[in-house]
């Protein structure tokens, strides 16, 4: 060990780190109140249904959303539920943004899949934002506007839930012959994370969103593109 490393170790002993309180009572009280058992993530056979069930349960758990679930859409790992009133939500920046910015190889390693991207010049996007260990997001430019492309595995261990209200338009459309969903207007987004279980923070989305599947991935484009522009861009993503 070098002298600098020895100094660092010594410094660590001199840091003013407050003594921790006993966290166990608060942790156990929270778990007792919610009466939850560890979620059986590995039961792949029931997983897709479980995700949907949790999504619906979560919608009902929000008092403002308890009034009624009006309609239900599901595509890839994403479930879209139309409710009468949107639950309280924070802007994306307050929710921690898009995740950690990392290089593309590092993102693909963490996510466990190759990112699908539109054709690009040079080596492509040098920065990918990774949320939890599940959602990869790159910022593209299309028609002079920034557009977010987010991708995650549809393979049952992760899911996104969107809540929409009547003023928000939700339509089935096609991308290269495959089903896709076009959402126009404000809605909220909550995601399930492979590592962390159900993430309770709900984010308000103000742009338009196109959701479709590509292989085992669920892809979403978010921004201020028109439906035709979004579908045209989605067709180039491979």
């Amino acid at each position, binding site marked *: 060990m*070098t*002298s*600098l*490393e020895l*100094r*660092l*170790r*010594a*410094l*660590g*002993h*001199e*840091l*003013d*780190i*407050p003594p*921790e*309180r*006993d*966290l*166990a009572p*608060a*942790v*156990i009280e*929270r*778990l*007792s109140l919610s009466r*939850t*058992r*560890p*979620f*059986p*993530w*590995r039961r792949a056979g029931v997983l897709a249904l479980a995700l949907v069930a949790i999504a619906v349960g979560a919608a009902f758990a929000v008092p403002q959303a308890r009034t009624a679930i009006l309609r239900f859409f599901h595509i890839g790992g994403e479930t879209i539920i139309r409710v009468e009133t949107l639950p309280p939500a924070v802007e994306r920046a*307050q*929710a*921690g*943004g898009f995740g*950690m910015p990392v290089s593309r190889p*590092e993102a693909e*390693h*963490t996510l466990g899949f190759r990112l699908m991207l539109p054709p690009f010049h040079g080596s492509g996007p040098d920065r990918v934002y990774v949320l*939890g*260990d599940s959602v990869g997001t790159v910022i593209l430019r299309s028609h002079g506007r920034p557009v977010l492309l987010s991708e995650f595995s549809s393979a049952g*261990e992760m899911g996104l839930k969107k809540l929409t209200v009547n003023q928000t338009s939700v339509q089935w459309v096609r991308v290269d012959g495959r089903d896709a969903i076009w959402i126009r207007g404000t809605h909220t987004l909550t995601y399930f994370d*492979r*590592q*962390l*279980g*159900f993430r309770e923070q709900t984010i308000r989305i103000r742009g338009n969103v196109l959701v479709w599947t590509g292989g085992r991935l669920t892809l979403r484009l978010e921004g201020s593109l028109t439906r035709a522009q979004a579908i045209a861009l989605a067709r180039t993503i491979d």
Partner: protein
Amino acid sequence: MVDRPLDETELVERARRGDLRAWETIVRTHQGIAFRTAYVLTGSAADAEEAAQDGFVKAYRALGRFRRGAPLRPWLLRIVANEARNRRRSAARRERLSLRAAAEARPGDAVPSPEAALLSRESHEQLLAAIERLSDEHRDAIACRYFLDLSEDETAAALHVRRGTVKSRVSRALERLREELEGEL
């Protein structure tokens, strides 16, 4: 006859089946390192406590995904550190770490001369200031490896990167610190 204490694998299995007392034992075993990890990442005792508490709640709910036989501590640290980083990002700032007050000697420490104590404190403060000037990723790597004494694997889990990335970040951070402190070492 005295009951033998349960080992961690048995505790995890019990917790997986919904035994909260088993989870309570696990929380008590790991809460110290969980809190300290969250603290060096956020610099805030309140944020660290919340991050550690939320981390233990989320880890319990995600136990079904924990690979049987894998070491529990890196997995817990990964979840807690993720919570801590989320709070740091939400606050868009990190509190600076500070040294203990000079009078707070550790029990059993030899009493240094006043001059030696002053020199040592100045040297610690200089080094800490240089660390705080590093990028977050370099600073976090140094904090995990040297302040918390985490292994490379545990650091990789806490920082959510590969082991090789930990090595390169630590190496670059040490290089930066040497440059900054050139002539002082």
